[in-house]
Structures are given as C-alpha cells and as structure tokens.
C-alpha cells in the first residue's frame, strides 16, 4: 500500500494569495494512499526540506509530491532532499501550483480546485513511480568554443589555462570579432586592437587550443560530456603550411573592387585577402564568389606570384568530426544597417552611416587613417549628428529592448570627433542617457562638459538630403517638444544591436532555445545566466543579448568556469528516464514482436537488435533493445510501438494513464 506525502508550499504569498493551501492540504489528505498532507510557507527553505525529510522517516513514505513551483525550477532541490532522507529521488514529483495555477488565475474556488486536481494527478503518478538509478557516463574533457570574438577568446584562454583542450571555430578568416574593428574603447579610450591583438596571438600559440578559422559547425550529436561535432572547414584555397603570409598575392590580385567587410564597406579589398593587418592567422583566403579564376576560369595571378607555391585552387571544403564534452557559444551580435530606416532614407544617403562604420572612420587603421572624413566626398564634416536609439526601444520597429552599448559608444564617438575636428559641432539625439557602469557616467559627462557635445533629448522623425546636406528633423523634448532642424554634413546612427545572422540556424543545429529576437536563451534569467537549456552548452558574450566588452569578458570567464567545473568530474550521472523494451515470462520473453519500425523514429540511433537465446545458444527471439547510455528519453518510439512493448521510465504508460484518469475523474 502506497504511503504518499504531499507537501504544499505557499511560496510566501505567491501561491497562497490565490490558492487556499490549507484546503488543498485538507482535501488531498483524503486521497487514498496519501499518508500525510501538510502546507508550509517555504518548502524550498531548509526548515521546509527538513520537514519533508522528517515525514519521510516518521511516516515511512513511499512517495513524495511537492506542490510548489515548476519542476523546471526546484525538482532537483526536492529530489535531493528525498534522497538524503533515504527515499529514491525518483519517487518525488512536483505539482506545479505556482506557474501553472496561482500566478495565472484569480483568487477563487475554481483556482483552489484546480490546485487540488493537479496535486491529485501527481499523487496518482507517484503511486506508480519506480525507484530509478542514475546512469553514469564518461566525460570527454575537450571544449568547443564557437566564435572567435573577445568573448570566445576569453573563454578559450581560461579553459585552456586550466589545462583542458579547447577547439575554437571561427566562421571568418580571422579571429577578433567586432572588437578588432573598434577604434578606441570606452570609458578609457585605449586602443581596441592594442589590447585585443595580444590575446588573439595567445590563442593561436596556446598549446591547448586548436584554432579553426573560416570554419563553421555543421552538426551536433550526443549529449553533455559526450558531444560529437561535425565542423566544416571552408576551403581557403591555400596550403597554410607553405604560406608564409608575405601578402604578395594580395597586392597583385586583379579583383580589387570588393567592399571590405572589416571596413564595413568603406574601403575595398582584393579577392585573395587578409581581412586586416593584425589578422590571426595572418594568412590569406580566396573569396570564391569574387575571385576571377573561380568566376571566369582564368587568372591565377596569385598562384604565379606566390613564392612558396601555396595556392590550391582545387581545395575543397573539409568536414572533420571532433568529440567534445562541452560547448561555449560566443557567436556575438550584429547591428541593424541604415537601410533598416525608411524615415532616414533607406540607407540611400552616403553620409548617413552606422556606428561600426564610424568606428572604422575613426580608427587609425581605417580607410581614412583615422581622419574623420565623410564617405561621399571625403570632406571633413563640420556638423555631425549622432542618433542614439536608432531602432532600439522602438516597438514599432519590433525591437523593444535597449541595445545597451549605444549611449556609451555614441558619447565616445562625440569625444573622438571633437578630438579630431576641433572646430566641429557634434549633436546627439537621445532618449535617456544610460551610463550605468564603472566610470561610465563620468565618461558621458566628459563628452558633454569637456568636449561640448550638444545632447538633445528627443527623437528624429526624418532625415533627408538637400543640396549636399543632410537635414535632420527632430524634436527637443526639453524645450517643450520644439522641432529642431539641423543641416548636418554627416549623420551617425547608433543602430540597434541584433542577433547575428546565423544565430537561429545554429540554435536549431545545437538544440538550444532562443528568444523572439533570436538571441540564445539562458536557462534562468537570474540564477543560470551562462547555461542554456541544453546541458553542457554554455553562453558567452553578445550572443545572449548585446553586451559591452567588460560584460562579455566577464560572462566568458563565467562560462569557462562552468566548463571546467564539468570537466572536474570523470563521470557524469544522467537522468535515468530512458526508454526500455519490456520483458515477460517465457515463451514470450517480451511482447516485442521485433518489427523494428521503432528503429527509424529514434533520433539517436539508440535502438539495436537483441537476440534472446536459449542455454544452448539457439536464437529464440529477436527483439528491440534500447541502449540506455544513448537514449535521451524522448519517447517517440514508445508512442509508435503497436504492442506497447516500449515504456519510458518516469513517464510510463501506467503513470500517464493514471494522470489522465485522476485529472478528469473529479473535474
């Protein structure tokens, strides 16, 4: 006879405000098989957990239902508690009274009744729970870092310095990411590349780090501690061992009119190119789309001039497979471009640029060698207008969130501009100045007070070009919304930061969840900000949401610690709710008739053939066998099996059937 303990949590007021917990306890106490039913203010607190433990011992409980928050929140907590009290953790289930009841319904009888039904359902389930033993699996102590921006670099170095192997995959020809494009960095105005490039070199030279640039993740299989990753190494058309990076080819290449990605289209590059002088690795790749040879079938100038004969036109993409125990996603972000703004001319005005383009213009290594000159005619702009919040915090644009970095870099831009164009005027349209961060507000004050940037609190309704000037029409909300019109020589939009283009596709390949803006979703907004919902995959930097450099680096180190923590075990214990094929007495042995239609539904190829033999080795029957260390417990085979020969531990036929029964019997 089952002896179930029901423990109803008030969660402070969160549940008790709308659900009459005392009544729930009173009613559920009478459910057959329930030995005890009590309610308490905070079940997850120590006293709460101890109460459960005491009852388990005192009442000799055979099962526990904790009616509290979502199992996705506290199931591990309470199962651990039960385990400590000598009850198999898997005999503990949670009834979700908070997220699925008290928080979504008003205070009334219906809500309390629903709570009772939910508890009853779980009681009936627990009655049929079986003790389960966790499955042990080994850990591959190699990490895969996807993305070679500052976050990826930091994670990789931290993990590698803890003595673990790291594989870094970067889709571009060089690591460095957006940070390598920046001129100076706030709030200290130190040169971005000067602080980044040493780290880039360190990655390339670190004995524990294998770097694959111009490569992308093709697919991911397996599970935490035991991932199998296919990586596509895109053909560089180059033998890297032979190439010395002398760069002769790039000077001789005839295809010279290709807009440079690194310079945001403000300068041109050749078809065989190194994205920027400090690139790591500092060896060229051939951009097949634009290479004359790949298009027309003749040219091969680079091959002719190459002193080491390193060019390989016949090189093809290579797919390599690696085994890793954990992944760090550091794929970064992207920004909206001027063409996203119809009211600002759909990007048809040359002198209306975005923040990254301004970084390149302001950068000493940029197309203007650091002189602030406007793209259209190379003139030095005497009047420049910056727009903070271009797209951000604008539901009409589908971007409700704050891009967070714009306030700071706009202030930086204004300062850089004033330092280079002393007689120029910089206007900044803004909504609010959000400068929360160490020495951040001081920085924006400096822009205003020392460098005289003219901050106008208001938004810009339209920008149009007239006689070579950009007319910026906005409002000054601090001058009772008076219309402001500025005839600017150049306009810089601090465009919204958005998820990087491939983010959704990658998320789907890796089965990590992502939010409506395609940023990767953390497992818990506050308590698990670097984990994803998929065990063993962690987040670093702006792929989660737009972050500035210090934040990205901090999170990157956080992710690194998570990985190292994982690698500190030789074995992992896995959730034992996996599918099993039943066994019955001879001559049946199993109700499985061995049609093996289940084999092709299994996403993990976990289903094998098993031959049941007699003592003399004669094959009596061939049935399906599900490899528990491969099975992930989706249960797709369970629902397919006609003879119901497969069952999934933790969600058995008996259990779910009983749940349906209990749920409706009383409705």
């Amino acid at each position, binding site marked *: 006879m089952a002896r179930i303990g029901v423990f109803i949590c008030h969660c402070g007021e969160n549940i008790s405000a709308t659900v009459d917990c005392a009544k729930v306890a009173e009613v559920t106490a009478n459910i057959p098989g329930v030995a005890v039913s009590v309610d308490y203010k905070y079940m997850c607190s120590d006293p709460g957990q101890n109460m459960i433990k005491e009852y388990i011992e005192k009442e000799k409980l055979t099962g526990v239902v904790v009616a509290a928050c979502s199992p996705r929140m506290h199931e591990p907590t309470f199962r651990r508690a039960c385990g400590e009290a000598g009850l198999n953790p898997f005999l503990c289930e949670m009834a979700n009274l908070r997220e699925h009841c008290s928080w979504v319904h008003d205070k009334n009888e219906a809500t309390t009744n629903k709570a009772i039904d939910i508890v009853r359902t779980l009681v009936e389930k627990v009655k049929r729970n079986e003790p389960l033993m966790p499955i042990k699996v080994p850990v591959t102590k190699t990490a895969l870092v996807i993305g070679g921006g500052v976050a990826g670099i930091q994670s990789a170095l931290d993990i590698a310095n803890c003595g673990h192997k790291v594989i870094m995959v970067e889709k571009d020809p060089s690591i460095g990411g957006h940070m390598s494009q920046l001129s100076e960095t706030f709030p200290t105005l130190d040169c971005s590349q000067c602080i980044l490039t040493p780290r880039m070199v360190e990655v390339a030279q670190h004995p524990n780090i294998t770097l694959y640039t111009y490569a992308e993740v093709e697919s991911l299989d397996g599970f935490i501690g035991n991932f199998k990753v296919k990586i596509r190494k895109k053909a560089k058309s180059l033998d890297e061992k032979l190439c010395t990076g002398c760069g002769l080819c790039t000077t001789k290449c005839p295809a010279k009119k290709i807009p440079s990605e690194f310079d945001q289209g403000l300068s041109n590059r050749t078809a065989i190119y190194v994205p920027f002088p400090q690139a790591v690795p500092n060896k060229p790749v051939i951009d097949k789309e634009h290479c004359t040879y790949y298009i027309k079938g003749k040219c091969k100038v680079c091959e002719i001039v190459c002193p080491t004969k390193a060019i390989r036109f016949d090189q093809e993409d290579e797919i390599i497979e690696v085994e890793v125990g954990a992944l760090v996603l550091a794929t970064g972000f992207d920004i909206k471009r001027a063409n996203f703004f119809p009211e600002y001319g759909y990007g048809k005005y040359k002198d209306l640029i975005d923040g990254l383009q301004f970084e390149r213009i302001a950068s000493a290594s940029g197309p203007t060698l650091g002189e602030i000159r406007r793209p259209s005619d190379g003139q030095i702009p005497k009047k420049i207008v910056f727009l903070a919040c271009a797209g951000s915090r604008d539901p009409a644009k589908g971007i409700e969130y704050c891009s967070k970095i714009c306030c700071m870099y706009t202030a930086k831009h204004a300062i850089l501009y004033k330092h280079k164009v002393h007689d120029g005027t910089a206007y900044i349209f803004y909504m609010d100045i959000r400068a929360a961060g160490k020495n951040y507000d001081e920085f924006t004050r400096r822009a205003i007070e020392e460098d005289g940037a003219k901050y106008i609190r208001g938004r810009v309704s339209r920008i149009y070009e007239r006689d070579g000037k950009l007319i910026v029409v906005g409002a000054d909300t601090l001058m009772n919304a008076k219309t402001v019109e500025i005839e600017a020589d150049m306009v810089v939009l601090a465009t919204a930061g958005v998820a990087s283009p491939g983010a959704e596709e990658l998320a789907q390949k890796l089965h990590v969840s992502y939010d409506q803006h395609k940023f990767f979703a953390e497992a818990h907004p506050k308590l698990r900000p670097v984990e994803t919902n998929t065990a063993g995959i962690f987040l670093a930097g702006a792929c989660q949401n737009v972050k500035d450099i210090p934040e990205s680096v901090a999170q990157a180190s956080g992710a690194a610690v998570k990985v190292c923590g994982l690698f500190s075990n030789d074995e992992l214990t896995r959730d034992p709710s996996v599918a099993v094929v039943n066994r019955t007495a001879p001559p049946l042995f199993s*109700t499985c008739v061995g*049609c093996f*239609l289940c084999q*092709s539904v299994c996403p993990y190829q976990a289903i094998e053939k098993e031959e049941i033999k007699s003592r003399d080795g004669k094959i009596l029957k061939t049935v399906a066998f599900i490899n528990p260390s491969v099975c992930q417990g989706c249960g797709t085979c369970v629902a397919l099996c*006609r003879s119901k020969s497969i069952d999934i531990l933790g969600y058995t036929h*008996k259990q779910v059937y009983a749940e349906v029964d209990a749920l409706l019997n009383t409705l």
Partner: protein
Amino acid sequence: MDKLRQKAKELLSNNEVQIVVGYEEGTAGKARPAFISSPDQADALIYDERCIHNLAVYLTQHKLSGNTKIAIIASFPVMKSIITLASEKQLDENFIKVIGISKDNNIIEFKDFADIERYINQQDLTFTPEELALIEKIDAMSMEERWEYWQNEFSRCFKCYACRSACPMCYCTLCITDFNQPQWVSVPSHKQGNFEWHINRAMHLAGRCIGCDECSRACPLDLPINLLTKKLSMDIQKQFGYSAGQSLTEPYALSTYKPDDKETFIR
C-alpha cells in the same frame, strides 16, 4: 489448376518444402485454406475466384514458422502482405517459397522477395473507383451523420476479434486488448469498447494495411471496418506518397517524416 497441383507435388516430393499452404474445397461450396504436407494430398488443391482468403496470415503463426519450409499459393493481396511482413522483419526468405498466381490465373515462379516486389510494382496499384466511391459516400456525410453511422455499425460488434485473427498484419503475440495495466481498450463489447478497439485496429494498421478487405470478410456481422484502414491508406498515400505492400526497403510511413509535411490544423 493441374499445373498448381503438379508444382505442389514436386515441391513436397523432393522435400523443397514441408507444407504447401493453399485452398481446397470447403463446405457449402466455399473454398477454405488447405495445409498440404504430402504429395498425395496435393490433388485437393484448388484455385479459382472463390479462393479469397489472405493466406499470408498463416506465415507468422508459430505452429508453421520455424524450421519447416513453407510454400504458399499467393494471390496478389497475399504477395503484398508478404512484402509488408518481410519489410517488418517477420519472414525468413529461406523458409518461404512463394507460388504466385497472376490475375489471369497463371503460376508465377518467384526467385526471392525482391522478385515479388518487382512484380507488384508492374501491376496497377491505384484504388478502384468502387473503393473510392465507398469512402466518398462517408466523407460526404456531415460530422453528426458520420458519428451516427459508425456508432450504429460498432454497436453491433461483439468483439470476437475475427478481424484481428484474419489480418496478416495483426501478428502481435500479445495484443494491447489483452493488457489491463493500463486498460487501453475497455473489455466489454459496448459502444465505447468497440469504438476504442476499432480505432486502435485502424491506427495500428495505418500505412500497413494492404487493402485485402479480409477483416470485413471475416466479420460475422459484415461491419465495413475495412473502410477505416482503407481511408487511412488513401490519406497516407495522398499526404506522404507511401502505400503499404509495395516496397521491402522504404521506411514505414509513420516512423519517418519530412520537415515540410503539409498540415492545415496546427496553430
């Protein structure tokens, strides 16, 4: 017919097979399945339009399968059944000799199952106008009418499970109707029990039914239950371009998917 008997005789006499499964004269002018184990019985074998039972059903019965080699007289539906059973790993090619009978009653020698597969795919596999008409008749009804129609039909069922025994694809050694933990299908043959049983039967045969109609023929109450599986076969063929009993290798319609499967109802 003599050719057939001749063939059976030689197979048995040179011990190529131990049993020939075919048809013989039954009572009341009906034909019935015959299990011939010696050459001298072979003359009992007949084959004519009355020989309609789907003999494939016997191939999965433990009494027969095992070490005995069987020769089976295979009409077109039987051939399709064999292909499906084989694709579901229920038949051992080395123990089964298939003597096909073409539509115009000629004997076809099959080397192996692949041979049968080839033959089947040369035949006309489309649904007959009659079949389509039957389904359309019900599709044309209103929801309420359909409900009433089937409730009526099912109310007559008394769960003799003849449909199950007659179907070659119903070879589970323990049918879910025999479970009571949990009780998937309520035992008594009241409307609910019958309803649940027939849905189960149809769903378990979805995409596996080869359309021999043996189920409704076997039914002592002539319930048109063959329409359930037929409807699904048509639907599955339309939706996923798959039909049972035509391929040894193609994966089962419901254990595979295409990401772009077109549905209209998911929100």
